[in-house]
């Protein structure tokens, strides 16, 4: 139609070559039909087109510069960003991670129940991992989610159970699944670790494709399934969850990100370049997220709507709870898949006490962290929340789909963000991968937060690329990232269908190790063996309420350098990491100052704390050195 058709010609479908020119001519091309001008009016100069037209008419590794932390950072016009940022000269120390899983007793592959040509979406989502000191011995043990036959009419085999591995120290793990009574057989997705009953032992909330579960830690090495009696039983597709004190009453409430309404009845098959594959979230309806409010008596009441945890079209895969604006209260950020992300913040009128009239508002759009700077909503899978640029404010890194950039939302204070993915080279390091779990870690202890990203596609083996290499991204101190995966160990040279990732200092040596789950291959337990020669300080914060602190922040100062980390929970994808905070101190071996801005409003400041050890801070009490795991 239209002007396109004013044109002409003939020709076959091939690119123009000798043969196609011949073909063109054979069909009368140039003179006879070329310039088959339509509409005819266009031939107002027809007499002139005596030839063609007429006849046709019939047819650097610099140390990070940190700014002083402040309790309320007002947004202000930024200085020009570092347009002169130089390329990083490369890591000053070579990263080295060793996959201990094969040798330390962990041999576990998530049972996805992937059936050829069924293309039932839950099959490709994988399962998460959680670090939890379930027996209170001071060592972090590893919990791994497992799947089961997705058709509930099919009975799960004995091996279709979650796994709990007890950390025996010296990189040895022993499976204690049945002894600990965690062998639940729902189709597991993720987990959230938190002491909801404040008995001193972390409990487990397990998300699932239909039938999430609350396991209460009895403190004797066993768990009880209290899902029903606690009032959190629901049959929906939950993915990631976060324990935090939503109403300020001192106990932990539970936010649960939910994904899609997918059943065997409404499941669909999509085609990619003619090949069948899994349909994405655009093909299904969203399921509203949940907020289970702790009643203090072991029961919960679902209160998402009344608390304001309501957002349109939330297809949540990851969540993080952290104080993003330095008001000590945690915000909740939800990564939605192919839908705008959510940022819930507690709206409190001036003078309102924190414990009254809790109401949250969803402000991601106005805050600038709902969609990319181009206005595109992205396929958000995982979250890594940390202060990447050293301005004391936690930024938000999100993993996204293949050939789509990952995104780094830079925090400007006062709950304003902008997409800073280009300057930071987040775009450059992400467009060829599809990221899921992601963990902030300072692998080289230089004081700049680096990133681990687990990658892998979702469309199945017929569509390439499918398996992908994981990434270790080094922060040069200015918030710019370079991929330093090559040479970081054999694990990084291999291709995986990476899913969950959880960071923890499992051997208490002052650096973050990683548990990474995959589809169709065993979990990896990556011990950080990077030889840095640098220093660290570990901070274990325990509020009066006896549960893990969420909200507020910790500031560590060593000489002229200062680092700020939020007290947060969740993040990554379907996974739960170490609650302790690790600060890389770089070359500084001098005593440090630690300031704790407690969620309660209290501020503690301690001077002259020796580095290269963990310190335990009980709210309102002097710190003590953590002496190591009990035998």
């Amino acid at each position, binding site marked *: 139609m239209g002007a396109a058709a004013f*044109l002409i010609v003939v020709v076959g479908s091939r690119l123009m070559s000798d043969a196609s020119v011949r073909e063109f001519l054979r069909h009368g091309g140039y003179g006879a039909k070329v310039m088959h001008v339509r509409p005819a009016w266009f031939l107002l100069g027809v007499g002139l087109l005596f030839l063609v037209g007429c006849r046709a008419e019939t047819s650097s590794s610099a140390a990070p510069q940190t700014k002083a932390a402040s309790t309320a950072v007002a947004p202000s016009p930024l200085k020009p960003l570092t347009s002169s940022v130089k390329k990083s000269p490369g890591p000053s120390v070579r990263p080295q991670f060793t996959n201990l899983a094969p040798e330390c007793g962990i041999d576990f592959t998530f049972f996805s129940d992937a059936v050829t040509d069924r293309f039932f979406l839950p099959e490709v989502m994988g399962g998460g991992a959680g670090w939890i000191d379930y027996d209170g011995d001071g060592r972090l043990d590893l919990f791994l989610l497992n799947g089961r036959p997705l058709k509930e009419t099919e009975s799960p085999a004995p091996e279709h159970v979650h796994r709990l591995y007890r950390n025996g120290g010296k990189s040895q793990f022993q499976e204690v699944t049945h002894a600990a009574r965690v062998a639940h057989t729902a189709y597991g997705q993720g987990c959230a670790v938190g002491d909801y009953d404040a008995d001193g032992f972390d409990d487990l909330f397990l998300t699932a494709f239909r039938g999430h579960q609350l396991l209460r830690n009895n403190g004797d090495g066993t768990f009880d399934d209290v899902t029903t009696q606690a009032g959190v039983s629901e049959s929906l597709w939950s993915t990631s969850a976060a324990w935090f004190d939503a109403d300020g009453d001192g106990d932990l409430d539970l936010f649960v990100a939910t994904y899609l309404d997918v059943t065997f009845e409404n499941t669909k098959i999509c085609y990619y370049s003619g090949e069948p594959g899994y349909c994405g979230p655009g093909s299904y309806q969203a399921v509203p997220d949940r907020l289970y409010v702790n009643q203090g008596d072991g029961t919960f009441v679902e209160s998402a709507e009344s608390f304001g945890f309501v957002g349109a079209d939330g297809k949540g895969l990851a969540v993080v709870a952290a104080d993003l604006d330095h008001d000590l209260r945690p915000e909740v950020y939800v990564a939605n898949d192919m839908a705008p992300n959510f940022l819930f913040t507690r709206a409190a009128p001036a003078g309102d006490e924190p414990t009254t009239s809790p109401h949250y508002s969803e402000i991601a759009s106005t805050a600038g962290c709902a969609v990319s700077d181009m206005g595109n909503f992205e396929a958000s899978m995982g979250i890594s929340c940390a202060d990447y640029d050293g301005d004391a404010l936690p930024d938000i890194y999100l993993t996204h789909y293949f050939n789509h950039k990952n995104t780094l939302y830079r925090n400007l204070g006062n709950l304003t963000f902008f997409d800073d993915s280009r300057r930071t080279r987040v775009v450059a390091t992400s467009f060829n991968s599809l990221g899921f779990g992601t963990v902030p870690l300072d692998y080289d202890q230089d004081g700049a937060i680096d990133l681990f990203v687990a990658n892998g596609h979702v469309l199945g083996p017929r569509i390439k690329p499918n398996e992908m290499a994981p990434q270790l991204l080094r922060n040069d101190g200015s918030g710019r990232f370079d991929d330093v995966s090559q040479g970081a160990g054999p694990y990084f040279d291999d291709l995986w269908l990476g899913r969950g990732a959880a960071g923890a200092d499992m051997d208490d040596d002052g650096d973050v190790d990683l548990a990474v789950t995959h589809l169709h291959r065993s979990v990896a337990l990556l011990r950080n063996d990077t030889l840095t020669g640098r220093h660290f300080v570990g901070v274990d914060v325990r509020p009066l309420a006896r549960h893990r602190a969420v909200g507020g922040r910790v500031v560590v100062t060593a000489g002229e350098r200062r680092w700020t980390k939020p007290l947060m929970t969740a993040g990554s994808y379907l996974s739960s990491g170490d609650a302790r905070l690790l600060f890389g101190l770089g070359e500084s071996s001098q005593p440090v100052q630690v300031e704790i801005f407690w969620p309660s409003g209290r501020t503690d400041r301690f001077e002259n704390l020796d580095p290269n050890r963990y310190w335990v801070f009980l709210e309102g009490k002097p710190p003590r050195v953590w002496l190591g795991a009990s035998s």
Partner: protein
Amino acid sequence: MAWRQFINRTAFRKRLAAALAVVMAIACMVLMGLAYRAHQGLSRAHTLAELGLWSQARTELNRYVTLHPGADQARLLLAEAFVKDEALASNEAVPQAIAVLRQVRDNSPLAAQARLQEGRLELLLLHRPGRAEACFREAMAQPDGPLEASLLLWKTLDLTGRYYHVEPIFWRIFEQSPDERKHELLAEWYMSQFYPATGNADVQRSMGLLGAEDEASDDTELQCYVRFIEAEPDSPLGHAAAAHWYQFKGDPQKGLDVLDRGAAAIGHEPNDPFWLAARIRCLIELGEFEAADAQFQRWPKPHEGFEYWRARALVFDEVRGDFPGALAAYDQALTVWPGPMDWRLRNRRATCLTRSGNQSEAVAERTRAVAVEELSREEVHRRLRELLVTPQAEETRKEMAELYRKIGRPREAELWLAPVKRASG
């Protein structure tokens, strides 16, 4: 002496004079015969052409133009004969046709036609949009520049991803076209505005770049660019168009690789704005800010148009952190088509406002961006495309006018609605 006596003889003189006269007469007759034959050659060539005897026609025309160096009309026919003569290999024929057309001088009354045909050959047969564009522009610059040259230039710009240069060309075509055809042009303009890459399937089919049954898509768009690169490796156009495509698809590194290979093929870094824009965008995506700024500083004059203002906005915003400068550039870009519909750019302006500390205005701008994005949704345009089957229907006209009104394009809105208003008195 005897000799002199001999030639002095009167009788001999007379004989010689007669012989010379005869020779001259014969020469004149021969010349007249040749002229006559040559003259007849042109009409014979036309006859042969009509019979499809292109080799013979070519022979006649070659003879004719040799004897008539100013016979540009014959050159146009000769060019056609070259292309149609199956005795010639096509890779020889088309370049020879172009060479013949090039012999038509710029001051010839047929120069516009010659350039138009040359451009047509370059675009449709040789797939060299860079050369084609130059030809179309030369044709348009002639006093009687044919409208078709403008039309083909429009298509060339769309096919190479430079749809934002089309607007002045479109209005020129529109104003010079008869009223009864304007509704078709408006429909075509809509397709060019909203579907520049895939809305030219007929042209792509004409070029052999798309099968008769194939639909234009993002992939075929890239295939076009690849073909342009193959056909015209020394032009920045194909490389830049492919680089823009890769950048938009989320692979700026591949975009940059294409440009690097292009620069190697061309022998230097082109100073072409389209090229520079592609390079700047890829470099910014990859976080190579210094290099992006250096490229921007090479931008040739004139400093105008959507491409320039967008590049300037991105450099000032992302690279230099000069937010007032960036906002001014965003404002300029948003006024030039496709700025009014570019909700992504509007979102970037909102981000710039956030970074400059103007959060309330950022929120307002984001709201405006969402409103524009709503008007870009496929559901909206699927409906409009269906309506365009009957572009003169009142319902079509009203809905098209409404779209243009909402996006702040009163001229198109009024043109769509004018017949409805006239009909209602």
